[in-house]
Every structure is written in C-alpha cells, then in structure tokens.
C-alpha cells in the first residue's frame, strides 16, 4: 500500500526535512520524492509506503494536514489508488 503526500506553498528552509521526519515517526517509508520551486511556489510530491504504518491512515492524513497548517503549507495525503483509477484505464 502506498500513499501520495503533496506539499504546496511558499518555499522555506526545511520543508522536506519536516515532512519526512513526520513520515518516519509514523513508520511511513519514503520511496520517491520530486520537488520543484517555481517563482517562490514550492511543490513537492512524495510517494510513501504505508504498509507498516503505526497509526490508522485517516489519522496520518489529519496529522499531515495539521502540520501543513502549522507551516502555512497545503499538505494532502491520499491513497495512490485514487490517482491510479482516475488516470489509468
């Protein structure tokens, strides 16, 4: 089972570190990260393995959103199936 964490907002120092630290706290293994900064807008997409998650998925999603609020960023944590089903036949 894998999830996609997307982080969008103003660029700042340590965003990747803070999000990946939180992933490790919940035993979510980061598999792949892509990030770009365009005109100060930071966009990061992180693929994480959630097979051995230490908390329920819904809680992970809530906690990541809360982290986003603290950092003034928009963080979405979504199961990869929603993207696979929408964009692949």
């Amino acid at each position: 089972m894998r999830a996609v964490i997307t982080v969008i907002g103003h660029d700042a120092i340590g965003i990747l570190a803070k999000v990946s630290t939180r992933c490790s706290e919940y035993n979510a293994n980061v598999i792949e990260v892509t990030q770009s900064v365009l005109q100060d807008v930071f966009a990061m997409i992180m693929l994480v393995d959630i097979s051995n998650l230490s908390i329920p998925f819904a809680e992970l999603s809530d906690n990541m959103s809360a982290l986003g609020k603290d950092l003034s960023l928009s963080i979405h944590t979504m199961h990869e199936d929603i993207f696979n089903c929408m964009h692949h036949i």
Partner: protein
Amino acid sequence: MLNAYDILETIRMIQDECLDIRTITMGISLLDCIDNNIDVACENVYNKITSCAENLVSVANDISKEFGIPIINKRISVTPIAIVSAACKCSPVKFAHAMDRAAKAVGVDLIGGYSALVQKGFSAGDIELINSIPEALSTTEKVCSSVNIGSTKTGINLDACKIMGKIVKDCAESTVDKACFGAAKLVVFCNAVEDNPFMAGAFHGVGEPDVMINVGVSGPGVVRAALSKYPDANITEISDIIKKTSYKITRVGQLVGVTASERLGVPFGIVDLSLAPTPAVGDSVAHILEEIGLEQCGTHGTTATLALLNDAVKKGGVMACSRIGGLSGAFIPVSEDAGMIDAAKSGCLTIEKLEAMTAVCSVGLDMIVVPGDTEPDIIAAIIADEAAIGMVNTKTTAVRIIPAIGMDVGDELDWGGLFGCGPVMPLKKQSPSKFINRGGQIPAPLHSLKN
C-alpha cells in the same frame, strides 16, 4: 506510473473545482420486517436499519480521508413503506418516525423510502401511505418520500396525479414554519428506478438484494473548468472533453463504492453517473451550459447544449464503472444551482423551458418554487405533463415543486445549505381541472409493446 501532472490535476479538481462524491447510499430491504402489528413492525424496521447501517458513516468518513475526496452525504434508502405497512391496515406514519429515529441513531443525512408505487392503481396500504405523507414529512427531520404515478409500461395513473397535486400542497402548508420544506422532501415520479442513491426520491426496490451500496458522483465544476481551457473548440470536441472528464469523475465513484462495499461487507450496486450541482460557487450545471456558449441558461439553445452534456456524461462514465444505474445524467434542480437561480431570477429560465430540458436530461422539474396560491389541480397537471414526457421517452421524470405558501412571484424561499434558495416562478393560471378530474389511466404508449 504516477506523474506529477496527474497528481496535481486530481488535487485541483477536488480543492478548486468542487469534485466530490455526492452520496453513499445504503439500500436496505425491509421485507423481513413486515408484521400486522404496526408497533412490532416499526421496531423491526428500527432494528434492521440500525444494525445494517451501524458503520456506514464511520466507514464513509475513513474512506473520505484516505482518498482525500469529500463524501458529502451518507444516506439510507429502504423498501417502499407502503409495501411494508400494508398488513397493518392503518396510517403508516409510525414507520416514518421509526425511520427518522434510526437515521438519527446511525448519523446519516437523509433516509428515503416513505414511498408508494401506484403507476397502475392503488393496492393495500398505498392510499393510507399517500394520505399520511404531509404528517410524516412535517413531523420528521430526515425522512424523504416519493410516489411513482406512471411508467412507460403502464401509462399514467391520473387519479394518483390528482391526489399528489393536493398532497404536495398539503406538505408545503404543514411546514410553513420551515419555509415549506416538507414539499422539498417529496418527489412524484414516472418510471422511478429501484437503485437511485439520490434524495428525495431514493427507495430500495423489491428486486434489489437485502442490503446494497450505491454511489452518486458529482462534478459540474470540474466539467466547466475543463471546458474553459478550450474556448474555441467545436461542439464535437466539447463532447469529447466532457466524456474524458466524466470518465475521471466516475472512476472515483467506482473506487469509493467498491472500497465501501468491501469494508461494510455489503454488495456494491451501482454508480449513478450524475452531475449534481450545489449552490456553491463553481458547482453549477447551468454554468457548464454557459461555458459552452449560452449568455444565460434558459435561453434558446439550452435544450441542445443540455442534451449534449447529458449524453457525453453517460458515454464517458459508462466505461469507468462496472455497473451503472440510478438516475444517471445531469441534474437541474433550480434552487440548488447558482446559475439556475440567477437565470430564474432574471426571467431567462422559465418553467416551460425547464420542462423541455427535462426531456433530455436526468429526472425532471426539480426544486422549483411556485406561488403559494397555486391550485392543487394545477400541480396535478404539472405532474401529468412531466410524467407524459417520461412515459413517452422511456426515461425517469419527476416533479419536486414547492408551493411557497403566502408568497408570490418576486418573493424567494431560502433553505440554506445544499438545498439553496429559489425565486417563486410564475405558472399559467388557466385551469386544467376538468382534465384532471376525469380520472382513470392514461394508456401506455404504443412503444411499450416491445415483446
């Protein structure tokens, strides 16, 4: 492999373009609750609903968080109560109260199925149920009611049209203190479907399994946003863009439905391929038609653009899910669509145009506010007109109009939330009473004889 563009597109659809799952509806059969003692039957109904739907809301909320997509409504539909209550031989209003208590206990938004199917005549329990609808809807919060008065196979029960004209008015009068909201919880159908997940017309047909999960999707905002990127596309290209968008929307419905069905241990029924608007900015079906090229919804060209939209939504959605059902198509509830509200206020959208629109899209005259002094026979004739469109075109049509008691053209009823607000729309004053009072059955059309 996932790519960044696809991921960001999905998030934009949900965040900015109001993509959501409009409803997860659990259909529950109450046939095994029947008893000739109404109190025993009601207890059976309460127990069955609360045990089947115990986890519906929590499972839907978990799925919503995991996939990051809002699931707006969690609902229940049940076997038409006229069938369940027939053996009791008394007013079935106690069933409405049992349904309301059960709906509140499990935390769903609405419960549908306070219904009767009388397209070919009245059987035991039907008249009692129909007569009790105003009381049932004015003394409950979550109960929705529907009555099927016609079908392509049977024709139209004109006696039932007449009765329903009065019942609609009574429902409004008995809920004047709630902005006549009773009438908004009552739908009169022709060709009602048995697996519809949308309210107020959902009921669980007798041919359905014991318990089932049906899903209704939505996304007018997504379709409009997709079209806005192609301002110079020709109409064939417009149809293709709608199909592709509808495919994506419907795939999410399929995913959510299958996941909910697995977790609840209940068979998955259908996805209703729908474009259901809300009064929220950017969630309007009327605005899609305007994006295609109308100055305002309701003007000449509205029927053609809506026909194209409705057809493309189905064609795109049909490959995206394993089974399709319900009402599938674009909805045009006036009070629930910001573009329709504006068009009705400006006078561009009239009830006659809405009637034409119902011939080419999902359902019918929906959430339309009419003057409070409208005679019941006029409402009955509106129902008969709409049923005729459904009967002849072999499609579902419905009437959900709200007589605004004490109000006239120029006034407005406001319910807030998803139900929105509606300006009072003018009706013809000339009487159809002689036609309505003839009674009897309008025979089924020739093309009903397909065997």
